[in-house]
């Protein structure tokens, strides 16, 4: 019986508007649970709050109402630095720092950099299906897909329990996107890494399978097994989304 690793309970959040004015609510009463080792797709129309939800899970934002539980304890009771190590986030557009891929993989607080060996770096690249020759490539000259992989390898070196990926395939062609999803699915199946993946691309969603959370207007509309919810969409918002996504 897998344990619940993350749980949102009635989470609401609004961003501060300009000059401190109260902004619109971006998440409203969001509740769901995530079990250790699960793969969760987060899908929904643009502006629906998907990125905000990920930012909430690694404490880039805090909820106005409700709470997020990690291993049954309020996320706010942990040290944020510990949370960001255990619940890793990659941004939609990967940022590569100056220097080589090795420099990028080593870019972390001093004590943790010291603990990394050459074998760790090779291992992390292998995890994202890049060979060791990449270590000495200039990071800024990689392709979009390679950058995305290096960004994932970079956070994998923190040995996180949960990996949050914000639209990891949006800059990739369908073949590269398929490979990337295959890679992270392998990490999930072989290392038990819990995955939360935000995506617009239905092929990517189907390929990841697992569970699906459909977010629209800041609310959870569907929370169910991925394939079933896409085969037989019951909610009109989901049907509209599927119809709009067809090529």
């Amino acid at each position: 019986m897998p344990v619940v690793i993350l749980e949102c309970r009635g989470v609401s959040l609004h961003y501060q508007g300009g000059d401190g004015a109260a902004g619109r609510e971006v998440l409203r009463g969001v509740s769901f649970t995530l079990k250790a080792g699960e793969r969760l797709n987060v899908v929904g129309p643009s502006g629906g709050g998907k990125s905000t939800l990920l930012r909430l899970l690694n404490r880039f934002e805090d909820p106005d109402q409700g709470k997020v539980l990690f291993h049954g304890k309020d996320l706010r009771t942990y040290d944020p630095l510990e949370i960001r190590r255990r619940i890793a986030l990659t941004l939609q557009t990967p940022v590569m720092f100056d220097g080589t891929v090795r420099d990028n993989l080593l870019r972390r607080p001093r004590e943790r950099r010291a603990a990394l060996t050459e074998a760790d770096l090779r291992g992390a690249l292998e995890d994202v299906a890049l060979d060791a020759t990449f270590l000495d490539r200039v990071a800024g000259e990689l392709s979009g897909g390679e950058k995305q992989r290096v960004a994932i390898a970079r956070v994998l070196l923190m040995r996180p329990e949960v990996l949050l990926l914000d639209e990891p395939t949006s800059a990739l062609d369908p073949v590269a996107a398929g490979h990337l999803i295959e890679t992270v699915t392998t990490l999930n199946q072989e290392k038990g890494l819990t995955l939360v993946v935000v995506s617009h691309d239905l092929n990517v969603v189907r390929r990841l399978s697992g569970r699906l959370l459909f977010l629209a207007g800041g609310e959870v509309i569907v929370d169910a097994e991925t394939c079933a919810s896409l085969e037989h969409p019951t909610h009109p918002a989901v049907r509209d989304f599927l119809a709009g996504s067809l090529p």
Partner: protein
Amino acid sequence: MTEVLDIAPWRLAAALLLIAVVFVLSFRERLGLERSLLMATVRTFLQLFLVGYVLRAIFALEHWAPVLGAVAVMVLVATHTAVSRLKRRVAGITAFAAIALTAGSGLTLVFVTEVVIGVRPWFDPQYVIPIAGMIVGNAMNGAALAGERFQAELKNRVPEVETLLALGFPAPEALAGLRQEAIRAALIPRGRPVSDRCDADAHGGGRVHERPLPRAARAAVLHPRPPTAPPPGRGLSGRGR
């Protein structure tokens, strides 16, 4: 103490001639600066007039309290000016700027008047007030430039900062690069090259002209090189790649 020169009113009026030169230049080169020049001249004239009276009162009192009071007013005005130049309000920033400007310019003032010049009596307004004016004015500019640059960098480099935070860096370390740029901007010497001023302008930092210049004039001032060549200097576009 050596004797102070008395400047005759007609000599003071002659200073206006210098402004007249700029006025004529602006007119002939169609720089469109006449109005703001006129305003600035009148404003300066009134300000100096008022300040003159206040200073005369302070000088007459021959007591340290009004001198320190004048310096305190300078620091308060400098704090307000520096903070109001920030694009975004930050909670507690006024107190923070006041402490920084008081400590920074206070220590410098004591050092310069006591160690470098050896002013006697220590509060002699003839020295303390103009020197304080220069020090506080520079501190204000430095603080404002640093604040403006920090906020501009933060706005441009959100993904980079968030990536560092996501990699487990504490906030001060994730912001270290921005802090460095801010300090650099504050410390660049005044007679700095045009390319740096362009850089500052791109951030809305440099307020060289009160009114927008006509296109051609602006291009000539900002890009003395052919406009096709990108202005030299460290642009932000290449960052974080």
